[in-house]
């Protein structure tokens, strides 16, 4: 099979966090975890450190619901569009069981009362847009993959959204809303009551239901409506004598509701980005947590009531204290509706830079799947109102070392656009970009492209910025010494040269690798200019086709200039002979050269699918072709340099050795190509267990910490090599041993040699060994401690599925063994290199 060995398209980080309500682990006071559905994965965050601890993958499609197992709060159910429910041990990230239901699952609910069944929302077979709430009996089989075929329909005609169904007090009833109807089904009485708000039409807006929440202890249902009202229904077991009261603060639709654990307070949120806390569920007493940044999609409350969290439209999780104070936020990739800036890699941090919040630039770290920071470029208040023309960021460029950042913002006006070119200088002290120069109306019309001259050696003096505009010129901007003594900075930017070609619109610009040549495309023509004298050197033209992209080849191929035209041709010109080297008939949307190698990636869009071609300009045949990369149109792509070159076996993937290709589809999905299989990709993240970091401060831990500090101080005395070796050697192995749950550990006799082995340090100073011994002793102590603690949980788990654990154990055993072996191998290498 090709796929096994071949490249896989992987949805990378950045997938939306708001697939379903987030779930807090049971005990937030001790070690709090926040579980969150993110694309095909379930993510586990530490509440204390906001760190992503684990990424649990295995579902084949979007995860639509996650729920703690009500009978074992260390386990988690998750449902997915692929028709399976998985039971996870989220502490270890192990999938315990997979139940195949068959049809798509759109929402998941688990109840404490129902022993072995969960509730899911599935599409009704045979009908479009009709959904039903189904109770699924989870079979108690031995295997890992089980079929759950025992389904019984509870409610018909429910909405697909997980927010529109809720279970009431102790699972006595289920309430579901759709459009203007509320239906409540009582399990014991087998009674179904329906209510409608259509009759109570209001003058302002519609009273459609948007979400529902049930009071945890009383018979009270809260519903949110599209006109911003919250209705509190009571007495709904009477068909006629039901009653409701109304709370109204939101001016637009209520997106989600949540009761506090005791039910005394109600939380509500909407597009206003304000979390409203209704005290005693009454209209008069309410508190607000404003300025949460963007629309609130989901609200969830931790089981102990200490924390609540909101999931926002822009992929952010905000963790909020019980006294309605902002505590922490976890920001993923913000998906703005239109990424005008393109995907740009910050040379300094290797973060992906693109449009974030309106008028902001986000720096998104691909490794941690978190936003590093957000830079306010436009520096104007954004008004949340439809139909307003607001200033937006359209182009950015980094200087090769990341010292300078150029941004273009524009405001679409009917007559003429308002443009601004800003140049930002990276301030080492504040570790952020500082505005250096602001140029109003750099061009008469929209700026189409912008680039810095890429000259590594003589960065400062030779730094040149070129902008191309629709006003048929390209402009060259250079830094000049500021003569004004009152100016704060010593340099500023000004225009040095204005070039044009037959009054064609300038569309793209690009510098050659050594910076000596500038290529500017003017509609159908590519012009090449000398970057010192700004003379027009030569022109290239490919008949009947405006140029969409141009780029220079790199390294060995630097004599080539590649261009893609909008009538579907990819051409390669030789700069030495000034002739067309080759051309290919391809509708290229994205042309992206790898900055570290001579490879160029081109992504085409043909007959409803995107294909990837990787080629070297000097060879006419592509090195790699992947047809049907994805179904969506790919808008942007970027090569992100790897920290260390990847070892790839086959020649075919050599182009992925130094950088990784990321691309963004028009549904704002960030994807990448990976040679590794899924399991491999997941291991690094699941390996690190941050239990230690989030442990509460106890006298013992303080003692341990003191020892560690001492130890590290001694280490620094010992010289660099030891420092380099030490943490690599002892910490992972010891950590692994100590923090792997006891029930998955192999027998002590088996572990002992590995453990000892890992503690042995090859012929080092004596003092180090002493320190190591000390650590060993302590870690033994902790091991005993933790063993005692875990016995309890182990017993509980034993009761549930003893057969399962056995299988799991053997599997895990071999894995850890393997890992140890790998580690030893690695150690040997380092030892060798010392020679």
């Amino acid at each position, binding site marked *: 099979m090709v796929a096994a060995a071949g490249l896989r398209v992987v949805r990378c980080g950045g997938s939306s966090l708001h697939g379903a309500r987030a779930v807090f682990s049971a005990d937030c006071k001790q070690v709090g975890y926040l579980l969150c559905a993110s694309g095909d994965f379930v993510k586990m965050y530490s509440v204390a450190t906001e760190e992503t601890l684990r990424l649990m993958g295995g579902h084949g499609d979007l995860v639509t619901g996650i729920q703690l197992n009500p009978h074992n709060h260390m386990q988690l159910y998750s449902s997915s569009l692929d028709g399976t429910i998985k039971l996870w041990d989220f502490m270890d990230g192990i999938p315990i069981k997979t139940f195949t239901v068959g049809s798509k699952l759109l929402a998941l609910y688990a109840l404490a009362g129902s022993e072995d069944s969960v509730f899911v929302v599935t599409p009704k077979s045979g009908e479009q847009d009709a959904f039903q709430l189904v109770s699924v009996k989870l079979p108690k089989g031995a295997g890992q993959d089980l079929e759950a075929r025992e389904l019984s329909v509870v409610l018909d005609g429910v909405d697909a959204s997980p927010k529109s169904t809720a279970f009431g007090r102790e699972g006595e009833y289920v309430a579901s809303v759709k459009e203007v109807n509320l239906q409540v089904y009582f399990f014991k009485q087998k009674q179904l009551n329906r209510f409608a708000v259509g009759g109570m039409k209001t003058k302002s807006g519609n009273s459609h239901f948007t979400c529902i929440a049930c009071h945890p*202890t009383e018979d009270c249902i809260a519903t949110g409506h599209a006109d911003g009202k919250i209705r509190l229904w*009571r007495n709904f077991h009477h068909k006629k004598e039901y009653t409701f*009261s109304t709370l109204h603060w939101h001016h637009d639709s209520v997106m989600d509701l949540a009761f506090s654990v005791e039910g005394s307070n109600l939380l509500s949120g909407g597009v206003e980005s304000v979390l409203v806390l209704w005290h005693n569920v009454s209209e*008069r007493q309410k508190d607000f947590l404003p300025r949460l940044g963007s629309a609130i999609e989901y609200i969830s409350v931790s089981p102990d009531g200490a924390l609540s969290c909101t999931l926002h439209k822009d992929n952010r999780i905000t963790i909020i204290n019980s006294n309605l104070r902002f505590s922490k936020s976890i920001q993923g990739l913000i998906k703005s509706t239109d990424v005008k800036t393109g995907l740009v890699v910050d040379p300094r941090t290797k973060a992906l830079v693109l449009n974030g919040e309106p008028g902001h630039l986000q720096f998104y770290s691909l490794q941690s799947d978190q936003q590093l920071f957000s830079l306010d470029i436009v520096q104007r208040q954004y008004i949340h109102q439809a139909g307003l023309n607001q200033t937006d960021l359209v182009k950015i460029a980094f200087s090769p070392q990341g010292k300078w950042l150029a941004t273009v913002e524009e405001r679409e006006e009917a007559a003429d656009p308002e443009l601004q070119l800003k140049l930002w200088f990276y301030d080492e002290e504040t570790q952020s970009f500082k505005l250096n120069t602001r140029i109003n109306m750099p061009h008469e019309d929209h700026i189409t492209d912008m680039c810095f001259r890429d000259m590594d050696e003589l960065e400062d003096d030779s730094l040149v910025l070129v902008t191309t505009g629709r006003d048929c010129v390209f402009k060259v901007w250079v830094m000049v010494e500021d003569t004004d003594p009152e100016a704060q900075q010593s340099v500023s930017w000004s225009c040095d040269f204005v070039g044009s070609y037959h009054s064609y619109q300038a569309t793209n610009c690009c510098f050659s690798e050594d910076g000596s040549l500038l290529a500017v495309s003017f509609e159908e023509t590519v012009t090449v200019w000398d970057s010192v004298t700004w003379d027009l050197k030569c022109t290239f033209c490919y008949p009947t086709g405006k140029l969409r992209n141009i780029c220079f080849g790199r390294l060995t191929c630097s004599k080539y200039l590649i261009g893609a035209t909008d009538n579907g041709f990819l051409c390669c010109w030789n700069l030495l002979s000034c002739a067309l080297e080759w051309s290919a008939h391809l509708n290229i949307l994205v042309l992206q050269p790898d900055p570290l190698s001579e490879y160029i990636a081109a992504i085409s869009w043909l007959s409803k699918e995107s294909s990837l071609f990787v080629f070297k300009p000097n060879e006419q045949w592509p090195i790699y072709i992947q047809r049907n990369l994805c179904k969506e149109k790919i808008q942007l792509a970027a090569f992100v340099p790897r920290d260390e070159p990847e070892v790839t076996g086959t020649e075919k993937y050599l182009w992925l050795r130094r950088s990784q290709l990321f691309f963004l589809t028009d549904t704002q999905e960030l994807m990448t190509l990976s040679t590794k299989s899924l399991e491999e990709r997941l291991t690094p993240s699941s390996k690190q267990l941050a239990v230690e970091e989030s442990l509460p401060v106890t006298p013992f831990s303080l003692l341990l910490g003191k020892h560690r500090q001492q130890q590290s101080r001694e280490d620094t005395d010992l010289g660099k090599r030891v420092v380099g070796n030490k943490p690599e050697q002892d910490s992972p192995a010891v950590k692994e041993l100590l923090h792997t749950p006891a029930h998955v550990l192999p027998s002590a006799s088996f572990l002992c040699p590995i453990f000892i082995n890992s503690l042995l340090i090859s012929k080092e100073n004596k003092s180090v060994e002493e320190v190591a011994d000390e650590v060993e002793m302590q870690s033994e102590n902790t091991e005993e401690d933790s063993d005692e603690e875990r016995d309890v949980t182990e017993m509980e788990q034993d009761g549930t599925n003893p057969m399962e654990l056995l299988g799991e154990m053997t599997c895990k055993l071999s894995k850890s063994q393997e890992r140890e072996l790998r580690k030893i191998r690695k150690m040997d290498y380092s030892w060798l290199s010392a020679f």
Partner: protein
Amino acid sequence: MGEFEVHRVRFFGLVPAGVRCLAWQPRGNRLALARTDGAVEIYNFAANYFMEKVIPGHDARSVEALCWASGERLFGAGLGGTITEYDLARLCVSSSLDGGGGPIWSMAANSSGTQLAIGCEDGSVKLFQVIPGGIQFERNLDRRKGRILCLSWHPSDTHIAAGSIDILRVLDVTSGQTLQRIMVNYHVQKVTRECVVWSIAFLSSGTVVTADSFGRVQFWDWERGTLVESHTVSTSAVLSLAVSEEEDSIVVGTSTGATYQLQLLPVKMGSLEKRWVRTKPFQYHTHDVRAVAHSSTALISGGLDAQLVIRPLMEKVQKKGYDVVLRKFTFPHRRLISCARKARLLLFQFSQHLELWRLGSTDETGKDGQVLPVCRLPEHLVQLKSKGPEHIYCSCISPCGSWVAYSTASRFHLYRVRYEGDGVSIKKVPKVPKLLLPAYQLQFSADSGSLFVASARGSVHVLQLPEPGGCKHLHTFRPPSGSPEAVYLLAVSGDGHWLAAVGGDWAIHIYNLKCLKHHCVVPTYSCAVTALAIHPLTNNLVIAYSDQQLFEFSIPEKQYTAWSRAVQNCGLHQAWLERDTPITHIAFNPKNPSHILLHDVYMFCLLDKSLPLPDNSALLMNQGALKQLPETVRRRQLHAFKICKKFQPLLFADMLDESCLVMVERPIMDIKTQLPPPIQQKKFGT
């Protein structure tokens, strides 16, 4: 419908007085309402909320509290310091007694209706015993400083809860001692304002409910003196509170014009634990809701904007009918305007004065819907001020315009008006015969030669008005069987032959004026008569009832006419029966004897007896649709009810001659501008 020249009159400056208090009588299904000018009105809920009785106000007799006691006796008390009993048959004060504690702020009757408790300015609570023919002082209860603003009896009649400023007290009825004194603002930090307990209710469970000026409705355990629950329903004061008979629902009125319902609901299904929950808010008023009442099926509220609102509780109403619709009443259900057809004069009745206006006129003619320019402006001729504190019961102008009569509770006035060119001279007629007063309705004969005075005990006096300006009592008609109730509507035939009179018992007596004897009784119908008139040509009596039924009774034949029988057989249109307000005036087209003109507050109807009656599938208000149809189709679509809703709210409509109508409107906005500004409330988006 035909084309008419319409005088659209908007210069009647009536401002109804605000509603001060309400008293609901569940047994009689009646509501007593007191207005800020001291007038007391009785609404009969069984007869489509018809305003059955009106006792006009009195300057010195404000009404702060109303209550029903010992059956159907109505008592009122006010800042004048007296307790008054109202005679609902004679529509006047039957007796009054000084409370002896200064101005009275509150009054409540015990559950059996044998005792009245009043709360006075001096802080005392006094008990009165209700005895036949009046009330008798019984005892004083424990007196403390601070006026007693509200009172409530415990349903067992052993305790009274009294609300004052900052405190509420619970008094023992037998010992007269204060058993509990609760500071209501104890829980509020840093109180700078005083907290006024505006209304109080004592539930049988021992819970005292208070409504206070901080906008809270609070539930207290009176024995322990502890606060059980507190609901802040409004940012402004909660002024009024009423509890349903089952004590599971409370309605409160606030000074922002909003009313709220609180319900006692089980916390969980099947559990006994119940809790008060604020459920529905209603905003029907623009000003203070000074009074609320809770009937078994509806929430009733009255505000300073003079509106009475009846909001049915859908869940309590068993079947769909007239009761399930929200009703709002602003204007009285009777005629305050009389018209001199020949002289083209209008007489407006206000609470303490009359205004005589001459209608404007025009020379021009125009098309349908066109506004004609007025060549002579309407003219305010005379303002007649009634002397003394009493308010006017009724007034009338003769068809020729030369006589004006009005009556207050104790006096009857007749004026002779002369028109000399543009000037008007008015002269009081001396030596008016002494009559049994007050008069409830006045009616001149068509030739202005005699005046009929509706009086108590079903009697009607006939006064003769000889030309130079005298007045002579001719005869008094009495119903042969006798009646305790006062006559409130009169109608006289065009030929001066017949007189119809309706009393409070809704029996219509017809008298022969030529023979001066009782002619017959119209078969009794179990509903209040809202308007009646005798056709000038056929001498048919047209009767409108409060359940919106219409009857035509032939006086000479002493039986219902064939048309009336036909109407009863096929029934009236559903939309007609579900109208909000009763018909208050009936007139006839002198040109076409089959035309009857009817109007209520929201519509004007020309009833053409010659056309077929509409069935329920037809559109009742079809005038607009008919205009679009071609002639032949239109003929088929025609039905008897030709309704015009152009003039709203319509207080009076009459036919001056065969082509000329007068319509008196009172736009709600004009009333609103006369009211004090309401509490400023921030409205979102403004």
